[in-house]
């Protein structure tokens, strides 16, 4: 039980990789990339060992960390965190494999990426609330550097805004955490920071509201919910491709994961009483995000705004407080990670070739570079939620579940699906079909072998989740149910 086990290995292997890469000579990018890729792939392989985590916490590790506060180094996974851990481990090697456009500073890029992986995996594995907080913040720093060092023209502004928004959110969370620790100490006489112990607290309704508010601010900024979303388009647009992918695929999930794992179980009554306001914001995010995306002329901005819309959907699934919807929300978190991650990857590929990202700078991509074009079409369809692809399953579950408990919000959100189809298909029409808009657009090279290899696992996941979601649902289901059961009839 108390051994330094597989989860610690998955968490800290990338950090070791970052150290190794940091000490390699910077003159040889191939060696750097190969070393980073090796660590990334090894970690991906290791992460597959936890694939059978389901209803209960497994691979438990527990070591004293700061005994004076009852803070432990506690790691474990269940069906909720397992897929997110694996997705984190998958995304990083994909990014490493497509870093050919990074010229100077490749070493820093890879080091930051690997440190980031440690933070991301750590967040999903932590069972101790202080440890969770530490990893939560740890993800912030490397991404800040990634955006600031490798981003676009306005990178400094975007990095600043990103860091300040998220840090501003997470500090009230710190006060809420301290408050909970103190409450636990008052109630039981011992210090403990274990989420499990803190869940056992019986707080009165008013206290729960405050605690929930503290956590909700941090997580809502991360999700991001309207009106706290304004950092996201800036960060996404300015970030380098790798940063965008990590941001979309993993970082946004920290918010929804936080709601599901921390905010809702720790303040169950407040989760019920806050459901309506949160859902109102979620609906606004879905529709407003979609309208924003519709209005964009820039590929990357379009995808960034669509993230706001999709994440609002996930929030609907969570706060419908219904088993089916919650399963859908979990699936949709993964789907959004896969689809939007893939979209950013493709936008990055396109941008490297054309050095422009406007919707009208292309045209006829399917003919010009077939693999790239078709990949973009498939990914867009998956993002819309075409039956047979992954997006469909998640959206269907969320809507079915939400109709039972929150029919009004469900109907409003369903309109978001329609809007999503409109802007995505319009994007596909303008970029992938028709004729090339100009001379440069007519001569774009197709996907390289590395890009194909990097993209392949994402496509496989899109089809696999779309056609056979059972494998994941078997694992997500029990874990989600146990959390909802605890929320139960309060």
């Amino acid at each position, binding site marked *: 039980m108390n051994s330094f086990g597989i989860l610690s290995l998955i968490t800290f292997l990338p950090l070791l990789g970052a150290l190794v890469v940091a000490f390699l000579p910077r003159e040889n990018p191939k060696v750097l990339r190969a070393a980073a890729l090796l660590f990334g792939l090894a970690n991906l392989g290791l992460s597959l060992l936890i694939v059978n985590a389901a209803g209960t916490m497994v691979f438990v590790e527990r070591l004293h960390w*700061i*005994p*004076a506060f009852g803070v432990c180094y506690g790691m474990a996974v269940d069906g909720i965190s397992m897929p997110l851990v694996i997705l984190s481990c998958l995304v990083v090697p994909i990014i490493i494999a497509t870093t050919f456009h990074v010229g100077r500073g490749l070493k820093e890029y890879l080091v930051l990426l690997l440190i980031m992986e440690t933070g991301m995996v750590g967040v999903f594995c932590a069972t101790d609330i202080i440890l969770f907080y530490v990893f939560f913040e740890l993800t912030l720093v490397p991404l800040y*550097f990634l955006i*600031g060092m490798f981003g676009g023209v306005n990178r*400094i502004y975007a990095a600043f805004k990103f860091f300040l928004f998220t840090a*501003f959110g997470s*500090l009230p969370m710190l*006060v809420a955490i301290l408050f909970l620790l103190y409450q636990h100490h008052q109630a039981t006489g011992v210090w403990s920071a274990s989420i499990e112990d803190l869940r056992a607290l019986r707080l009165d309704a008013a206290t729960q509201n405050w605690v929930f508010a503290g956590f909700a601010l941090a997580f809502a900024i991360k999700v991001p919910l309207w009106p706290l979303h304004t950092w996201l388009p800036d960060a996404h647009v300015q970030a380098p491709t790798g940063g965008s992918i990590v941001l979309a695929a993993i970082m946004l999930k920290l918010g929804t994961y936080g709601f599901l794992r921390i905010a809702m179980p720790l303040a169950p009554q407040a989760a019920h009483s806050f459901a309506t306001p949160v859902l109102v914001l979620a609906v606004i995010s879905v529709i407003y995000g979609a309208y924003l995306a519709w209005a964009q002329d820039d590929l990357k901005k379009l995808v960034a705004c669509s993230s706001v819309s999709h994440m609002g959907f996930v929030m609907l699934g969570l706060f419908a407080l219904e088993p089916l919807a919650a399963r859908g929300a979990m699936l949709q978190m993964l789907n959004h990670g896969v689809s939007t991650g893939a979209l950013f990857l493709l936008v990055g590929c396109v941008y490297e070739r054309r050095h422009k990202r406007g919707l009208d700078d292309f045209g006829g991509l399917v003919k010009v570079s077939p693999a790239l074009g078709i990949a973009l079409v498939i990914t867009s369809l998956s993002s819309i939620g075409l039956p047979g692809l992954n997006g469909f399953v998640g959206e269907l579950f969320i809507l079915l579940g939400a109709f039972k408990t929150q029919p009004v919000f469900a109907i409003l959100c369903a309109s978001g699906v329609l809007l999503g189809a409109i802007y995505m298909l319009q994007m596909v029409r303008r970029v992938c079909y028709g004729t090339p808009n100009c001379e440069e657009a007519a001569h774009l090279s197709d996907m390289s072998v590395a890009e194909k290899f990097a993209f392949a696992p994402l496509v496989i996941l899109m089809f696999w989740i779309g056609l056979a979601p059972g494998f994941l649902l078997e694992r997500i289901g029990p874990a989600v149910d146990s959390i909802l059961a605890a929320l139960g009839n309060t």
Partner: protein
Amino acid sequence: MFQDIALAGPILLPALAALLLLGVELLAGGRRSQGSFLLCALGALVALIYTGYFLANGRTGLAFNGTLNVDNTALLIALIVHFSALLAVLLSRSYLAARRDADAPEYYSLVMAAASGMAMLAAANDLVNVFLGVELMSIPLYVLAAIRRKSARSVEAGLKYLLLGAFASAFLLFGMGLLYGASGSTLLSALPAEIARLETNGGLAAFGVVMFLIGVFFKVAAVPFHMWTPDVYEGSPTPVTAFMATATKAAAFGLLLRFTPVIATGMGPEAGSSMLAVIAVLTMFVGNLGALRQQNLKRLLAYSSIAHAGYMLVGVAAIVAEDGGEIALTGSSAIVFYLGTYAAMNLGAFGVAVVLDRGEGREGVNELKGLCSERPLLAAVMAVFTLALAGVPPTAGFLGKLYVFSCAVQARMYALAVVAVLASVVGLFYYLRLILLMYFTPREEGAEPRLLRTDSFLAVASFVCAVLVLWLGVLPAWFVDFVEATVRG
């Protein structure tokens, strides 16, 4: 007698080193700066080891008829003071070597004398010893601030520090007089009981406490008694600034911790903690807001040190609010932990400032531009210190804040905790700006490559600080336990 002298070792050893330095200079005469550097570093190291030995073996007790209380907190503070002194001395070598206008043997002797006063302040259990400690700490610092006689800024810093410091000492003395009048005792440990016994003099005691605190607030640079800080920190030689920012704070907070029972009885826990809370909030915000627009690295760090004093005052307010009990111990441990980690990160940051200065007084924040491509390791180390000062995990700065703010929560001062957290968010702005300059902003087109030399002693000092900041951030248990265990006694 010998027992007393042994207990006073952390105070006497640096004083002895100071005298030795003067004596060697007297006999050997002039231009032996290398020798006096080594002697001073050795003196600080011996004092550090001696203090550590006493701490580890629980050699504590009252000395000199109870006028010195060498307890664990005092030893911990002395440990931080001697650590700061040692590191400041290590930073000094290259700083002084590049400048001809500072007298090396005198400089090192004064650093040791100040360290002796600080250690005394931490252990003082009698108002007379408090004053002695304050003056023994301050007078060498006045001289150190002005030690670059040919530099107008340095002289200005020294004069400002002297005038305002003397002003603060007067307040302190006045407060002591009133406290003596209210209680008939000069023993700090006897004051609360005596004040409570002679309750008719309540108003006198409260006034005395306020006056005494004003004196201490000057020393820790708490708002509204902070005005001297930016000018003095900017004008003083950089290693002296580092020493002042870390060791003076440690000593003054050591005194404040010993004084908390007097505040609670003299003013009442309610009034005392509200006053401290207001001062803490003001200090955090004035410090952080003031730092936002600074273009001089030392000035920026000066404002940041004001803000950090505010964070620590949050802990003091919590201790006074509860007046004894569990929180007095947790709060003391928290503040001592904070002081220790703050010393490491701040000394480290000033060390980098010394490198950037290159003996030419280049102190603008713009000197940080492009550091990551020129000296990646130095930039990484500075980034660690900056993030620690900002309180970002997994650095020690985060745990220090966590620890102190949790005291406020335990004392049910939720509003204070929230405000403190908000103040740290404001702090992020300017700490991030430093990182931004180092990592995201290249140097101007056509700028000549700089020759950034790192003295080996300075490199060791910065490395030790960086390791401590990360180690205490990632694996803090041993230090937290150590501090808790020793503070609890």
